[in-house]
């Protein structure tokens, strides 16, 4: 057990350093952060009419997080394993005694770091509401935290899909589709249709698996431990799938 933990930690350190460097050594992270912030700003100010709400809180801002994560985070995670396959370095990794679990966690943490940096750069939104009024900063901080955890869940999905397919484009498309299903499952329009067609019981079950439903309580500034555990569970499940799909290459590869 101790050896397993040490090996995993070694793998995390090795791949985290490499991947963070890869994100920031190329324009990828900077372009991602810039476009994400621009769009988030546009949706918050224009689409949600931030100044017309008359309330000093960030709910028009947080509302867009799941939707933008759904589109953008797979772009961040698509390269994590597909790039290794395309460049042949997957073969190098599989020939080494490093822990695949460690590598998978390290890669996820690296992408998550880029997401965290992006969230930090949204601070002008927070400054604005504090300038305009007297918001509940504890609630805002909590929503930020849950948004960060939710970003990890989107990235874990994208990273695992990237391990399943060898092409970045495919990894992105499948990543977005899976993320869309998990996000839109909680959308009132989808939930209404599902409940209408299959009964309210099924609608409730679908809602239970939705990112939107679990982020909603946090959007109101309420820490629901169940929602936190849900996102952690999603991350653990997809990291496990990631490890399984990478390890599977040993027996299935050509």
């Amino acid at each position, binding site marked *: 057990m101790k050896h397993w933990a040490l090996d995993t930690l070694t793998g995390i350190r090795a791949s985290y350093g490499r991947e963070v460097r890869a994100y920031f050594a190329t324009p990828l992270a900077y372009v991602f952060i810039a476009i994400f912030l621009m769009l988030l700003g546009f949706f918050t100010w224009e689409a949600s009419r931030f100044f017309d709400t008359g309330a000093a809180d960030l709910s028009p801002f947080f509302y867009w997080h799941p939707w933008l994560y759904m589109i953008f985070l797979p772009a961040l995670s698509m390269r994590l394993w597909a790039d290794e396959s395309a460049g042949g370095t997957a*073969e190098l990794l599989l020939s080494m005694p490093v822990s695949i679990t460690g590598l998978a966690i390290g890669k996820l943490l690296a992408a998550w770091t880029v997401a965290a940096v992006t969230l930090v750069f949204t601070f002008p939104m927070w400054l604005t509401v504090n300038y305009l009024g007297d918001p509940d900063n504890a609630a805002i901080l909590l929503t930020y935290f849950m948004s960060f955890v939710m970003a990890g869940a989107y990235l874990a999905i994208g990273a695992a899909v990237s391990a399943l397919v060898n092409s970045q484009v495919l990894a992105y498309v499948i990543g977005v589709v899976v993320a869309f299903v998990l996000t839109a499952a909680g959308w009132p329009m989808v939930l209404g249709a599902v409940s209408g067609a299959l009964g309210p019981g099924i609608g409730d079950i679908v809602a239970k698996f939705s990112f939107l439903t679990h982020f909603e309580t946090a959007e109101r500034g309420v820490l629901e431990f169940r929602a936190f555990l849900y996102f952690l569970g999603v991350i653990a499940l997809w990291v496990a799938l990631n490890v399984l799909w990478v390890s599977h290459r040993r027996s299935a590869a*050509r």
Partner: protein
Amino acid sequence: MLELKQLAKSFGDHKAVQSVSFKLDKGEVLGFLGPNGAGKSTTMRMVAGVIEPDQGDVTIAGHSIVSARRHAQRQLGYLPEGAPLYVDMTPVEFLRFMTAAQCMPRSARKPAIERVIADSRIANVAHRRIGNLSKGYRRRVGLAGALLHDPDVLVLDEPTDGLDPIQKRAVRALIARMAPDKAILISTHTLEEVPAMCNRAIIIDRGRVVADGTPESLSRQYPGGLEETFITVAGSPEADVA
């Protein structure tokens, strides 16, 4: 140091490797020859633990690649075909990553990087982006990565492929320097290199070992030397003879 026992691997109906067995001792440099598609790379990938054999086993310094893969891999240095590298890194960054991925103790990492940079003669490009390096330098960076943890067994898939004569000579000299302390398995398409680099050669065809001996003894089997032996024992009609 390295033993392959009844190693077999199929991809669908295609039997890529069929019951390959041989032993390699310390000091032996084995040239692994065969036409394209003969099963050389598949065998080497099984030895390196990249793919699992359908049957058989490989032991590296006493550790089974099937039942104790990580222990076996710690004793192995592997240069895959084409020497894949992270092109956005510099050689020093790449080697630093490799020391971590090889699970080397922290205190041993820096001296190991300095040693392989000197041995592989890449000091002058150590801080340049790998993507901007020539094929020869890239191959040497890959080789440096395989040597970092001073493994007992080296598996090098076409280490001189695409190199100019000067670079080939440098790689051959490096292999010759390491040879006394290690068991080295090298695949190559260039038959002329075999007598200069290897003290043993195995020819594989359609997944089976068809000849095993010293380069001299194989050269004597047929008039025309090693090339004639190669073409005769491995020159099946469908084989694309390199």
